């Protein structure tokens, strides 16, 4: 692995200091103001773009950089923008997904509490690139303070002429509103999200039509995650090569915000080269395991990803490296479990989360999840039978027949529990109790 800041004569631990782009201006108690952001070249990319670039040229530059979606699926940003047909109707909408309800994930919160104007600038450029008229930031209820910060800063940007009619004399008009969610995990799914903003019950909607052709109010709509879109001004200023060179691996690109929580000394959100090894993230940046705890497993990308065991402790954390070892990077939110934590119980907790948050639209998910919970609860309480394991295995495949990606995501932890920790499940069954409870 390359060490970006390591220079001769530096103390050894400084090799773990990396360029900070998204969290560069992180302050303990406040955001970066518009003035401060401008001193740091903020809004320079916007001014330059509106003056010198055509919408298509922006999309091209963004596409060259190969920015992959940070909302969990890793879909290339440029490709999504390009999927709007040239003759698509108007008005068009640009939506930022700040629902962030994937358990373990809090990067968008940290990012926007650091530099909201980075998002605002990025959205205006995105709006210009896809010829949108209006942008929405969809925010979950527990981030109410963030909604208020965003509304305040949007007004400041409006007064500076960055939003509204005829932005900076360019002839381009665009405005942004904060849309408060009523609070439900499924709203983060891109199509459910669009229903939510339109004031419909937020069930997902299988394509086609794709939202980029017919989205909100049947008009072309692009949705991106906060952490994806904030790269736009940086990439336009510094170029695709710079962006790619920020990564630790050839398969990675840019930096990544890794959230670490659970049994570590220093839980938090860290901006590191994409592709940084899991071991470095846990041992160095998150301060290692808490005293008396040994690493048992982690969920590396939010609750919808598989348990990852000691075997891949050194895995490089980028989308492709993960895919190659049969895992998904998801939101790169690492939840760390120690040797004293019962993973049957942890999986039960995860299944209860999914059962409660299921939108109820399709039967396999709505009925399957409570059934899985019941079986796991029996096992955890010492009332399990050997045949439950087979049923659970079958259910973990069966739920892939659901209507949206929610249920397959939910099955990740269950399937990997059975794959890697079958012994632990059987120990519960044979001993008729949870071996972790005294």
């Amino acid at each position, binding site marked *: 692995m390359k060490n970006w800041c390591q220079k001769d004569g530096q103390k050894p631990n400084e090799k773990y200091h990396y360029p900070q782009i998204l969290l560069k201006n992180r302050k303990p108690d406040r955001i970066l103001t518009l003035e401060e952001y401008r001193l740091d070249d903020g809004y320079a990319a916007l001014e330059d773009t509106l003056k010198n670039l055509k919408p298509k040229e922006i999309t091209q530059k963004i596409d060259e950089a190969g920015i992959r979606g940070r909302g969990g699926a890793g879909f290339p940003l440029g490709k999504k923008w390009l999927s709007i047909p040239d003759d698509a109707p108007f008005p068009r909408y640009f939506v930022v997904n700040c629902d962030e309800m994937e358990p373990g994930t809090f990067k968008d919160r940290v990012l926007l509490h650091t530099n909201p104007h980075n998002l605002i600038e990025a959205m205006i450029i995105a709006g210009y690139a896809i010829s949108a008229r209006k942008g929405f930031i969809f925010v979950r209820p*527990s981030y109410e303070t963030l909604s208020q910060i965003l509304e305040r800063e949007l007004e400041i940007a409006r007064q500076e002429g960055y939003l509204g009619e005829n932005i900076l004399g360019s002839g381009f008009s665009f405005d942004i509103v904060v849309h408060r969610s009523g609070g439900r995990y499924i709203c983060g799914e891109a199509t459910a999200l669009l229903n939510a903003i339109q004031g419909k019950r937020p069930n997902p909607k299988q394509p086609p039509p794709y939202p980029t052709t017919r989205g909100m109010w049947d008009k072309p709509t692009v949705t991106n995650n906060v952490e994806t879109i904030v790269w736009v001004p940086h990439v336009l200023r510094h170029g695709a090569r710079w962006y790619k060179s920020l990564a630790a691996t050839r398969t990675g690109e840019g930096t990544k915000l890794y959230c670490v929580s659970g049994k570590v000394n220093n839980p938090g959100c860290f901006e590191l080269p994409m592709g940084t090894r899991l071991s470095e993230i846990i041992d160095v940046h998150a301060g290692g395991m808490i005293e008396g705890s040994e690493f048992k497993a982690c969920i590396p990308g939010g609750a919808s990803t598989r348990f990852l065991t000691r075997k891949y402790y050194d895995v490089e954390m980028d989308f492709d490296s993960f895919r190659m070892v049969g895992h998904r990077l998801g939101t790169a939110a690492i939840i760390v479990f120690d040797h004293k934590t019962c993973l049957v119980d942890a999986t039960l907790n995860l299944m209860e989360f999914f059962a409660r948050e299921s939108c109820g639209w399709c039967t396999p998910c709505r009925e399957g999840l409570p059934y899985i919970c019941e079986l796991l609860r029996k096992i955890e309480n010492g009332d399990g039978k050997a045949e439950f394991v087979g049923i659970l295995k079958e259910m973990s495949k069966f739920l892939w027949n659901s209507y949206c990606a929610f249920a397959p995501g939910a099955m990740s932890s269950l399937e990997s529990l059975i794959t890697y920790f079958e012994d632990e499940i059987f120990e519960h069954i044979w001993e008729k109790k949870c071996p972790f409870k005294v």
Partner: protein
Amino acid sequence: MISGELKEKLLKEILEAETPNEKAVDVMYELQKVYGWITDEAMSEASELLGMTLTELDELATFYNFLFREPVGKYVIHVCDSVVCWMNGYEVLLDHLKGRLGIGIGETTSDGLFTLLPVCCIGYCDRAPAMLINRRVHGNLTPEKIDTIIDQIRAKEQES
């Protein structure tokens, strides 16, 4: 009934939206602030303001975790029960809260001050265990910290 002033404010916001439906959740949030929860009266007012049917609105009101179609206390405590808080001592905290308030999950204290509800991961896992009180976050919780928070609210309420 809501004040003419609020009505005007909401109508203006509805007018600025792409379609009235876009403001459905916002309007219900505002009415919830007035009534404490979304009463039937609030529902018909929302329906009138938005031009949406009661069924369309109930489809939303019953779906979302932060809209209440049943009475709740003045302070709604949402305790995070997702996986990180769970492994960092959520159960102990919940027991403490239940004991302290004398209520179970889904119940309201007899003085109408507190309602206890479960909620999934609130995005503060770096400060687990965590909870929300009226959507404000409290993290790195311990039983002592919870006592302080509850005492403060009770004291504030006694003053007013």
